[in-house]
């Protein structure tokens, strides 16, 4: 873990509830450093999450926090952004949270394309509830619930995002803090809905997808990959072996939801209520 100080650091001795050696620690470092790189003011940043081990991340970042319900980070993030578009909104949560309980919001957040960055801690397991399969668990993985091994096809967030024409789709590996940090910085800088699925080893419950496994089964995207090429991005997203890391897809052409919906710079909390004359006019229509 790097020792760089960031303005997003919490006071020393903050009790971090994650296990020693967990990939979450590295990802947290990468996120804080990326935020720092971008020079974001912590008071203008809202970290939004659901519930899970990953979803605790905002508790360890010096910024505003909305740690909501399991699976419901994205709608909350939408409400926040639409109410105050000056805020930087980052959603950080787990694979179960975002792809299982929150799967529907994942689809529809991408469809809207409001300015949010999703960082998904993809440990291919339910950590906080002690090791059941997540939507990204590999077929055959045994758990106390999946006694005969996982049956369903793993959810492929990148392929689905590209199918939805998500404008920024990337994958990183928490074990590589530097690259993760730079991909996350790019994603936050991107104006629109950006998705960063981050492979994150859970050292307690996932004995298959370890640091070693990820190192052996991942690679960089081909040097010549053009992220504006949707078909190429899709082909790489469905590639199984090895699993590429980096920015798969970028589509600068999608309009921003906030712009289309006419969201102004004035946050709603500053918006004056209708004047008495406006109210009178409203009533007048019913005379």
């Amino acid at each position, binding site marked *: 873990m790097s020792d760089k100080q960031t303005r997003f650091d919490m006071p020393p001795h903050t009790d971090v509830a994650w296990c020693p050696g967990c990939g979450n620690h590295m990802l947290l470092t990468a996120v804080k450093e990326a935020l720092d790189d971008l020079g974001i003011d912590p008071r203008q940043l809202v970290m939004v999450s659901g519930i899970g081990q990953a979803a605790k991340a905002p508790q360890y970042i010096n910024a505003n926090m909305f740690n909501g319900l399991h699976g419901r980070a994205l709608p909350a*993030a939408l409400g926040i952004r639409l109410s105050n578009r000056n805020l930087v909104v980052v959603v950080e949560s787990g694979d179960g949270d975002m792809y299982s309980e929150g799967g529907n919001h994942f689809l529809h957040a991408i469809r809207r394309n409001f300015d949010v960055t999703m960082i998904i801690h993809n440990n291919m397991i339910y950590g906080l509830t002690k090791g059941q399969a997540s939507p990204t668990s590999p077929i055959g993985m045994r758990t106390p619930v999946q006694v005969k091994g996982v049956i369903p096809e793993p959810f492929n967030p990148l392929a689905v995002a590209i199918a939805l024409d998500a404008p920024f789709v990337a994958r990183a590996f928490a074990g590589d803090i530097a690259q993760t940090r730079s991909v996350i910085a790019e994603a936050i800088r991107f104006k629109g809905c950006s998705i960063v699925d981050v492979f994150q080893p859970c050292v307690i419950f996932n004995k298959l997808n370890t640091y070693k496994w990820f190192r052996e089964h991942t690679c960089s995207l081909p040097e010549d990959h053009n992220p504006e090429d949707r078909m190429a991005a899709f082909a790489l997203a469905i590639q199984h072996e090895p699993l590429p890391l980096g920015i798969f897809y970028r589509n600068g052409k999608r309009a921003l939801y906030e712009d289309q919906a006419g969201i102004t710079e004035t946050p709603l909390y500053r918006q004056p209520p209708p004047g008495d004359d406006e109210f009178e006019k*409203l009533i007048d229509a019913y005379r």
Partner: protein
Amino acid sequence: MSDLSMVFEGAAGQGVQTITRMLLPVLKNCGHHVFACTEFMSRIRGGSNTTEIRVTEKPRQAYVRRIDMLFALSPKAHEHLDRRIDADTLVFAESEQCAVPAKGNCIETPVKALALEAGSPVFSNTVVAGMVLGLLAIPPEELDAFLHDRFQEKGEEIVLKNIAAARLGFEWGRKCPAAGSIKLPRIEFGGSAAELLMDGTAALGIGVVAAGCNFISSYPMSPSTGLLTFLAEKSDAFGVVVDQAEDEIAAINAGLGASYAGARAVVTTSGGGFDLMQEGVSLAGMLELPLVIHIGQRPGPATGLPTRTEQGDFNLVLHAGHGEFARVVFAPGTLEELIHLAQRAFAVAHRFHIPVFLLTDQFLLDAETSMEAGAIHRFPLEEAIVETGKEYLPYLFTEDGLSPRGVPGYGAGLVRADSDEHSEAGFITEDFDVRRRMVEKRLARLGPLREQALMPTVTGLIDNARTLVVGWGSNRGVIEEALDLLGDPRVAGLHFSQLFPLNPAVASLLGERKLIVLENNPTGQFAGYLAIETGKNIAGRILKATGEPFSVEEVLEALRKEVGHE
């Protein structure tokens, strides 16, 4: 006649609502009190739907079963309305279009023929409106302005043809032998009581806009969608952010995100959609976020009768969401109350940082009524957001349990909201003592909420009354009218538009009177709650669960039985 009831029946898609849309303003502008209510099937075409227009001497907001004049325009009219037609009903129908009912006083009515004479069957509704004016001896010119407004988009020719159609109808009506037997009620002195005309959804929308609401995220669901549509229509004029959510869970979580960021947010739904919002309600309780939740009730369980009416969601909202925290439930009884309580809902939600419920139903939302403009009030907005200081604590312990409300991006502090049990700073905690104090904090506001709770409205003279007829929500009109007709000084009415919490003074108001509770659900949900809260015995329950509103007649009958007038 002090009370005329006209019913217009037609298949979905036949556009019989246009008839009422033409007639209501004309009648109102003549100085009459008008009230209209609608019942319709869950389909877009076909079936048999009706709108009832009442023209009344006193202001009324209730449904009557009796039909004085029926325009039966679909083949299913007879089957659908058989129960409501009696020997005194004048049935206007065209044997070609519609099987003429066996009962009632049938008058062959050449709607289609006159429409064709005006140029096309599409003018049928205008012909009918003209007929009504003729029958009631109201000058047909009263319609012209409306026809202009409504059809000008389609070109001058269409406007003129509609005007001609109305005239044809009018002439027929004027000459109809039945014309003499229909009399409009007397107009109140001055004839200008009825300045405004709107439906329940508009009244709700006006109240919500007046409250400074600037955010709605919702998923369509009858009969609650109207508020979403209303705010969408007004979004530019009033700066309301409108988002159609992918589901109800998204809707309430977006509402809470917005509220956290400082918006004045509302969500609208019906019982089934609200089921899905309950975890969000619990989150509002935990995060101490203001949110107004409108529930347009309809008959359940499950999909039930999607386009019909019921008052079945009181218990649901009272206990919605796991865990315990403060909340408030309002149930407006009239359109005026809709406007006022929508404002109060926001004020209370934002003063106490809690979820507040507005319970309406299909009957009330679709009801249209004339009302005095002077009766509508706008309440001043309280602003409760503070600029945060560096050491801001979103869940600061205070005497009354209310912490100053900061929003992210405003001030030097950080705003942390955590759905786990949390410290004053908003961080996750498992400290048992903090937990205990936070539970108390979230419940403490029930004290002032009780003290500030609205008292029920009394009908009649309560001091003399030995029996009280208790109602809530949309039944205010029907109880008031039935009591008026009953005319028994020993019986008074009590209407609750705040259902929870109850004002501690309610118990003594009830005194030792015999209590009869009327509500449109199968078990008497509010009756049960009133009994616990006040310790009083409920002597009788007048209940219903067919999907229809209570009619004045059945309430009167039930009251006669209860108070022994039979």
